[in-house]
């Protein structure tokens, strides 16, 4: 019997450790060919002509250009403004221009040389500074309280800026998809690595102008996602299906690492300026935040990334008057899109650095300035949302202090810095407080409804059908665990249906930390209804399985339930008033670093992460999310960087885009706090993205503690820290809107 709070072995575990699990490139369909993509070498250019010379390509090769599209030239996401293939103009380096398929991988690559493209280069916009002069992809803002009056009443006004760079997902399995077209019915099939089978489904329906039932999408084993397989697989599935249609064969498209880095989305680079008025005790009175994100050439998911950024930009703090504006700027670079945290890590880095500036200005340590401002149950966020009883920011702060002795150590190292001898390694400790809203922003869950189906199989087991994919986070373990607990049966009585749009309802995408909390909640209700029907017919002493088999023999037993938002969760999308998220998970990180004073290389030694997650259904998997997310945050803070030259990524391979190895990694010490949340299944909140929010600001504060430098940009590479050491602090700029 696997109860809630136990950590049974994940059901896919042994297949994964023994190499038996089948990922996109491990599945070979009879007669399959291989696809390849012709990509733009320019950041911005007009395509004067595109010619295909079949005599230069391996025999039998087929090609697809924009002229061959059967429907609209757009990948359907929020809208369809992202082209399937460039039509007349390329807007970023590596933009897909044409496709080929051939009998072998090598032949497909060789065939790309049979295209002749005449480009007329156009002036590109490559930086956010240049992009300010052009219309943004999207802009959004919110206000609450009387900002001017609150600012006028402030004792001290602090301004600051933070900058964050690209982050590439580096899921270890690159993008991969196979598509084919059923000869008899014309049904388009796609099978591959994805987070969101119904996004792929919707995109294929749109691109091929087909009815829903003529498209079928299945997920293979997924070798990591982190947001990188939220939108991109939709484009890849269309590409593979276009080639399948042209060649009358299954066509597989597997990106190699270089192609995956140059051709797919990244975390949005961002610049955030913050202008804060505080009273004499350091309490926040007025908060003005301006957010700029680099959206790249097409909007993809940027509008919702910006929305989430705005709703996390004030951090887990009380403030009566806020004014927040954000823009996603358009540049001639590949679209930036979903990455774990979805805009929240950038803005919380900025807010945490701002809290540190305020603390330093008023002589308050990082713990104290946070403690004076932290939200409590019953407080209102700037949206007007009244925080529920599970609001745990202070609890996390206090627990982090209790476990690490942060305050004493911080003061000790501040003092030690003054006495540091030349060449001696410098230690630093840093603290960050953070929160993350789980589930879709605003009314997204109300609209999605997230149907989940539970049904009895002939043998009396309960099958649970959702559209969620297990990309490593473990829903294939947790869903049966929750269902078994809800039905009062063993996990062996449950079957987790493989994600297949012909078999499972559209319970939404596997994103936004929504799987356990939202879809899991619907699943529990569906299983409870099945349980009640079985128990109603069960005779004394009969096992659940026997009763279920008997009931099933009399006819189909199937229940579909839908997400029912809590009554209080209403949100006005025009004013940004209301409950933007059903609840929040909370965290406090303490990072310890060692800095080499000669090279300014930073070595992270330990990160203690205290996270309040409502209830950990499976503590090992829950802590695993926090361990892995914390290391991604450490990588973003210190190592991971993409530089651009003429719109081309210079760090476009794993030899130059550096993620933490096991030797670069700190000890990560996770402490789960579980207060339970009335709206979640068994009290659970969403947790997947939470750990991405705290690591970077904790590391930067620790560097400050060690060196006296005040970094507010990630990654804090030795080069950046050296530049900071050599430059006298420039006067911080006020927010953009106050420049005139």
């Amino acid at each position, binding site marked *: 019997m696997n109860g809630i709070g136990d950590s049974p072995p994940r059901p896919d575990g042994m297949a994964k*450790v*023994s190499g*038996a699990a089948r990922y996109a490139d*491990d599945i070979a369909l009879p007669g399959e060919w291989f696809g390849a993509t012709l990509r733009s070498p320019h950041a911005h250019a007009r395509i004067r002509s595109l010619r295909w010379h079949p005599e230069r390509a391996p025999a039998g090769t087929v090609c697809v250009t924009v002229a061959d599209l059967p429907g609209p030239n757009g990948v359907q996401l929020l809208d369809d403004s992202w082209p399937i293939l460039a039509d007349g103009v390329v807007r970023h380096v590596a933009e897909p221009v044409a496709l080929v398929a051939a009998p072998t991988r090598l032949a497909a690559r060789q065939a790309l040389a049979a295209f002749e493209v005449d480009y007329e280069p156009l002036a590109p916009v490559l930086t956010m500074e240049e992009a300010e002069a052009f219309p943004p992809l999207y802009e959004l803002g919110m206000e609450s309280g009387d900002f001017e009056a609150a600012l006028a009443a402030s004792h001290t006004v602090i301004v600051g800026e933070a900058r964050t760079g690209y982050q590439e997902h580096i899921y270890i399995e690159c993008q991969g998809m196979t598509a084919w077209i059923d000869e008899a019915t014309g049904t388009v099939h796609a099978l591959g690595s994805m987070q969101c089978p119904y996004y792929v489904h919707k995109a294929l329906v749109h691109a091929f102008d087909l009815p829903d039932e003529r498209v079928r999408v299945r997920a293979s084993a997924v070798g*990591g996602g982190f947001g990188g397989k939220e939108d991109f697989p939709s484009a890849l599935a269309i590409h593979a299906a276009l080639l399948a249609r042209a060649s009358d064969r299954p066509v597989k498209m597997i990106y190699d690492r270089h192609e995956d880095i140059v051709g797919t989305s990244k975390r949005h680079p961002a610049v955030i300026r913050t202008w804060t008025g505080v009273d004499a005790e350091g309490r926040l009175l007025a908060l003005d935040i301006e957010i700029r994100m680099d959206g790249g050439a097409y909007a993809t998911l940027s509008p919702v990334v910006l929305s989430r950024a705005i709703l996390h930009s004030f951090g887990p703090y009380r403030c009566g008057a806020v004014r927040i504006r954000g823009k996603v700027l358009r540049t001639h670079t590949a679209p930036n899109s979903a990455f774990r945290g979805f805009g929240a890590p950038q803005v919380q880095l900025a807010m945490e650095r701002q809290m540190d500036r305020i603390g330093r200005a008023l002589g308050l340590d990082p713990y104290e300035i946070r403690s004076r401002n932290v939200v409590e149950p019953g407080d209102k966020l700037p949206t007007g949302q009244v925080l529920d009883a599970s609001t745990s920011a202070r609890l996390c702060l206090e627990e982090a202090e209790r476990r690490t002795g942060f305050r004493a150590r911080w003061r000790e190292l501040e003092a030690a810095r003054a006495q540091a001898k030349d060449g001696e390694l410098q230690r630093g400790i840093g603290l960050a407080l953070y929160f993350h809203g789980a589930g879709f922003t605003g009314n997204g869950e109300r609209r999605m409804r997230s149907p989940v189906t539970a049904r009895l199989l002939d043998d009396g087991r309960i099958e649970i059908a959702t559209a969620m994919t297990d990309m490593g986070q473990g829903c294939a373990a947790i869903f049966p665990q929750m269902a078994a607990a809800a039905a009062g049966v063993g996990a062996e009585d449950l079957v987790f249906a493989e994600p297949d749009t012909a078999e499972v309802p559209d319970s939404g995408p596997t994103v936004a930390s929504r799987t356990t909390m939202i879809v899991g909640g619907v699943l529990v209700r569906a299983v409870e209804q099945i349980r009640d029907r079985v128990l109603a017919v069960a005779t004394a002493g009969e096992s659940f399985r026997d009763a279920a088999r008997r009931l099933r023999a009399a006819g189909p037993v199937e229940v579909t339930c839908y997400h029912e938002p809590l009554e209080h969760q209403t949100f006005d999308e025009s004013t940004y008033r209301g409950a933007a998220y059903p609840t929040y998970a909370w965290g406090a990180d303490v990072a310890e670093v060692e800095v080499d004073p000669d090279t300014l290389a930073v070595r992270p030694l330990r990160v203690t992460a205290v996270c309040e997650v409502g209830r950990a259904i499976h503590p090992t998997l829950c802590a*695993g999310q926090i361990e892995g997310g914390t290391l991604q945050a450490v990588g973003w803070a210190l190592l991971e960087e993409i530089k651009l030259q003429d719109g081309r990524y210079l760090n476009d*391979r794993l*030899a130059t885009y550096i993620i933490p190895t096991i*030797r670069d990694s700190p000890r990560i010490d996770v402490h789960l706090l579980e207060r339970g949340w009335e709206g979640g299944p068994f009290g659970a909140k969403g947790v997947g993205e939470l750990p991405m929010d705290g690591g970077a600001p904790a590391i930067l504060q620790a560097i400050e503690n060690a060196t006296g430098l005040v970094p507010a940009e990630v990654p804090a590479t030795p080069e950046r820290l050296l530049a900071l050491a050599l430059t006298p602090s420039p006067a911080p700029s006020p927010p953009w809107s106050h420049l005139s």
Partner: protein
Amino acid sequence: MSTDFAVNGRAVTVDGHPMERLLDVLRGTLELTGTKEGCGEGECGACTVLLDGEPVLSCLVPLFQCAGRKVETVEEIAAGPHRDLLERFVAAGGVQCGACTPGIVVTACALLDENPSPDRDEARRALAGNLCRCTGYEGILRALCGEPAR
């Protein structure tokens, strides 16, 4: 050109270009898809196999170098004497998405053959060439160093 070598205890003769990557021979010709490609340039370790008992990156090994030698892949190693390690990987949270896992399992088993009870520093040195993006390496270290699952 044909190359004779042993894969997982079985003699094989592979017809292929001498510079063909061992990774492609294993995954394609021999249909041993447990070995994964993560980068194709020797940075990530997902394609690690044993060549005469030593961990190597099969994306960097050309076929001709295998002539007369012994290759062991994750399929064979997982069926070997280290089953308890595999179970510990699952129990300790050492596996999430699983794409890096076969390479890590191969490297870890080779370490255990030499050092049955490595400490964290020894494990970190042995696994320096294997990237994992999911676990933060904590679950892997718990499994390999015999620490409590959590």
